[in-house]
């Protein structure tokens, strides 16, 4: 039997529908491989009995003819989505063994679509970080190179898909947390338009930025899964009131006449290997009929300082609820209530959440609110307006780097600030709420993947996926699997 774990979502859909393989067989294949590759530390909670039970239910439906097209396909969920049947920790000691009494909307919708859950994937604590090394449960390794970071905060999900221990995995992106790990792990990741997937059940980091998305082996796979995830949810007040959309419909639209905006200043800042890979990818697009247009991104360069005021501010507020009173970590020794809360929060939070809570508390505090928070929200509007104008007048999508180089080593960027600065290409799109996608476009000399970012206007996920798909029809970067996996 061919290695089932080297199937795409699209292929598994065919196999299961044709009854060539059972959901149980598929699930077992992945569970076996998850166990074999446990040193990757991509998963935080795996419960084989629970997964197999879901697979059995899927098989029952397939046999009785009640199945939907995607019944039986496995999926992994980033441990930032709460789930009824697996622990939900946000990769933090604060939520060790926390069992949610409800499923996140994203989890619910994928379950209703027939997906079988393999477990919860590792991430940076409370989705804060770019390495997954901020997890309180140990780092996840990049399957391409154990010394390199898988990226973050959705490093677990990206690593899973790269190592083919899950055909696809849900993830979240606040400042680049889907696009960057997807790029570092050589897989495809999409962050939809803010508000399109529901935030109900997503453990909150930065409420005006958090967006659920998907990491998979291709744009086609992303389109299949994302279609099930998006759509209005009345439980989320910021949910966009659009009906669900079948994103596979526009996949083969091609790129003839598509105007691709090229911010040369951004691309030229990248390391030579990556820079060349990006320009090569742009040539491929030209050969497919796309038109390259030089664009200038100016206000977008303020993305990092703006992001690192707004995101920590919202985070400091959202993380206030973790006080050891109703759930979560409670300190064992304390003098009184105040002491209990302070110690519980000191013990439960790792260094990165603490840093962001303190920055956030400071920028919201009396006397600093106008100069920091309000100012940042004003510059945010300038950034959004710049994108609007470019999309209105100059191009249909923007092609840009995801980062300045391939995945860096774990010991490379030690200080928080340098990590923050590496978000420069992804945070601007996040601040404007725009959809962004990352796809593999090459390999470094050190055999680490290079990623290309595509950014589109609001609600143009179809255009993004179609543009990525066109490239993936003409190239094979997305088909590469790291040795041993």
């Amino acid at each position, binding site marked *: 039997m061919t290695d089932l774990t080297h199937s795409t979502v699209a292929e598994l859909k065919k196999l299961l529908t044709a009854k060539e393989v059972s959901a149980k067989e598929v699930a077992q294949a992945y569970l076996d491989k998850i166990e074999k590759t446990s040193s990757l530390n991509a998963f935080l909670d795996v419960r084989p009995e629970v997964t197999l039970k879901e697979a059995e239910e899927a098989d029952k439906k397939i046999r009785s003819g009640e199945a939907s097209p995607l019944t039986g396909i496995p999926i992994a969920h980033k441990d930032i989505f709460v789930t009824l049947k697996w622990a939900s920790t946000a990769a933090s000691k604060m939520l060790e063994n926390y069992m949610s009494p409800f499923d996140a909307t994203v989890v619910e919708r994928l379950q209703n679509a027939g997906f079988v859950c393999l477990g919860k994937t590792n991430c940076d604590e409370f989705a804060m970080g770019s390495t997954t090394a901020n997890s309180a449960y140990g780092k996840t390794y990049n399957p391409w190179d154990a010394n390199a970071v898988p990226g973050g905060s959705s490093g677990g999900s990206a690593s899973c898909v790269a190592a083919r221990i899950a055909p696809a995995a849900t993830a979240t992106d606040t400042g680049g947390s889907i696009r960057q790990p997807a790029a570092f792990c050589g897989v495809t990741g999409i962050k939809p338009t803010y508000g399109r997937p529901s935030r109900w059940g997503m453990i909150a980091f930065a409420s005006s930025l958090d967006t659920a998305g998907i990491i998979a082996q291709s744009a086609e796979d992303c389109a299949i899964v994302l279609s099930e995830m998006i759509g209005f949810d009345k439980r*989320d*007040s910021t949910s966009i009131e659009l009906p669900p959309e079948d994103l596979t419909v526009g996949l083969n639209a091609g790129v003839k006449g598509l105007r691709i905006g090229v911010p040369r200043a951004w691309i030229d800042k990248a390391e030579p290997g990556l820079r060349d890979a990006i320009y090569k990818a742009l040539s491929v697009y030209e050969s497919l009929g796309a038109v390259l247009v030089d664009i200038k991104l100016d206000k977008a360069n303020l993305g990092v300082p703006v992001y690192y005021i707004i995101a920590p501010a919202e985070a400091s507020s959202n993380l206030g609820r973790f006080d050891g009173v109703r759930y979560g970590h409670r300190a064992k020794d304390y003098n009184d209530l105040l002491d209990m809360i302070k110690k519980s929060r000191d013990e439960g939070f790792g260094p990165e959440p603490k840093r962001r809570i303190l920055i956030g508390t400071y920028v*919201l505090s009396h006397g600093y609110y106008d100069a920091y928070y309000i100012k940042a929200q004003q510059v945010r509007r300038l950034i959004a307006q710049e994108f609007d104008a470019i999309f209105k007048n100059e191009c249909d999508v923007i092609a840009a780097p995801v980062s300045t180089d391939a995945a860096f080593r774990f010991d490379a960027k030690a200080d928080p600030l340098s990590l923050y600065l590496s978000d420069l290409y992804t945070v601007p799109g996040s601040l404007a709420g725009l959809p962004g996608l990352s796809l593999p476009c090459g390999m470094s000399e050190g055999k680490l993947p290079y990623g290309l970012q595509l950014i589109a206007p609001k609600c143009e996920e179809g255009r993004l996926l179609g543009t990525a798909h066109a490239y993936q029809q003409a190239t094979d970067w997305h088909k590469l699997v790291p040795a041993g996996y």
Partner: protein
Amino acid sequence: MEWEVVIGLETHVQLSTKSKIFSGASASFGAEPNTHACPIDLALPGCLPVLNKSAVEKAIRFGLAIDAKVANRSVFDRKHYFYPDLPKAYQISQFELPVVIGGRVSFQVENPDGSTYQKTINLTRAHLEEDAGKSVHGIVHGKTGIDLNRAGTPLLEIVTEPELRSSAEAVAYAKALHELVMWIGVSDGDMQKGNFRCDANVSVRPKGQKEFGTRCEIKNLNSFKFLQAAIDYEVRRQIGLISEGGKVVQATRLYDPDNDETREMRTKEDSMDYRYFPDPDLLPLEISDEWIEEVRASMPELPEKTLARLINEYGISEADALQLISHRPLTEYFEKAAAKLKDKKIAANWVKGEVMAQLNAAELSIEESPVSAEQLGDILVRYSDGTINQKGARTVFSAIWEKKGDKVDELIETLGLKQISDTGAIEAAIDAVLAANPKMVEEFKSGKEKAFNALVGQTMRATKGKANPAQVNEILRAKLAQ
């Protein structure tokens, strides 16, 4: 030294919605702990708020009732502080852009000598926010229990300008506000359940001084009695302090009814930095002019208008009218009873007289009256058209009250209460009385008016109370004049 007292009140009114302001859990009172606390109320990870339309509608109603501006656009802000009964460590409230701006409330204030005057004060604003949970003490030694049933119930915080000048004015305002929120149906105003709570900001200054003195805030006064006592104490305290050369320190205080004093709270709330910022989980609240007009059209007539109508159209005295509008169920009872009458004053007299007297004696509220407004109306119709007299009306009223029957006309028949209006019969009765009471006739003729009443009384007795009193009077006078 003459002192002026300056008071501003902040009132938290719980809105009478079925569900909470940001979650679909029940907002009703008294359930077992945490059985009305859903994941949103418990601030479980992953939860998000969605705004209750009825809470907004009630805020609009209130704004219209006090002649305020209802904002077309208002924003929910997060107010941060840590307390175990505040699960998110922030309260969703409104800071810079509240839903209601300005407004006025008028009310009657009683002077010590019993005279009254009208006062109108301006309101600063009213805004929507969520309530916190409750701390329960004494369950386990050294521990406090947290019940989050109340967390998330909708509140309207109503803030006055510092225009109240005495505890009497403060209480009068609070009472008027209390009646108003119940009148327009935005709150049940149940103070036992904590649905109407006042914080009083109190300061004093030498009369004539323009600058305000330093104020202290007395929190959580949930009865009018405590409100008055707390303010009185605080005024005495501040005046005493300043008179002895001391300075009033701005602080939050609690009123201790057992010792009749205010005490500074342990937590220094004034140094709290609430770090307000717009809640990113909620979008701005937009209220269209159309919606405001819809709500305006559905509002009940406001007390001032009802008062004017009672006085000008019905000819009821101001004092009586004020009493009738003091409580909306009472007003509705009166209106229903008066519906079929030409002379509404008759109903007014009965309602504020006989009905209230009976209800008070039996400790019943108007809603619990054994005689319904319709039944009273029927009685008064028969009284007006002369079928029965005053005594007869009282008899029917008592009969219905004691559940001896419920149809007015039937009772008049069975109890034989029809008034005797036949002049012949009355004449005959009077003739008999005059013949039987020569002494009384003499006393009358020698100038004793009292004897007349006695003769009337005799006539009424002789006719078993059924004679038409007006006719008795007329005929008797005529006969005596002969």
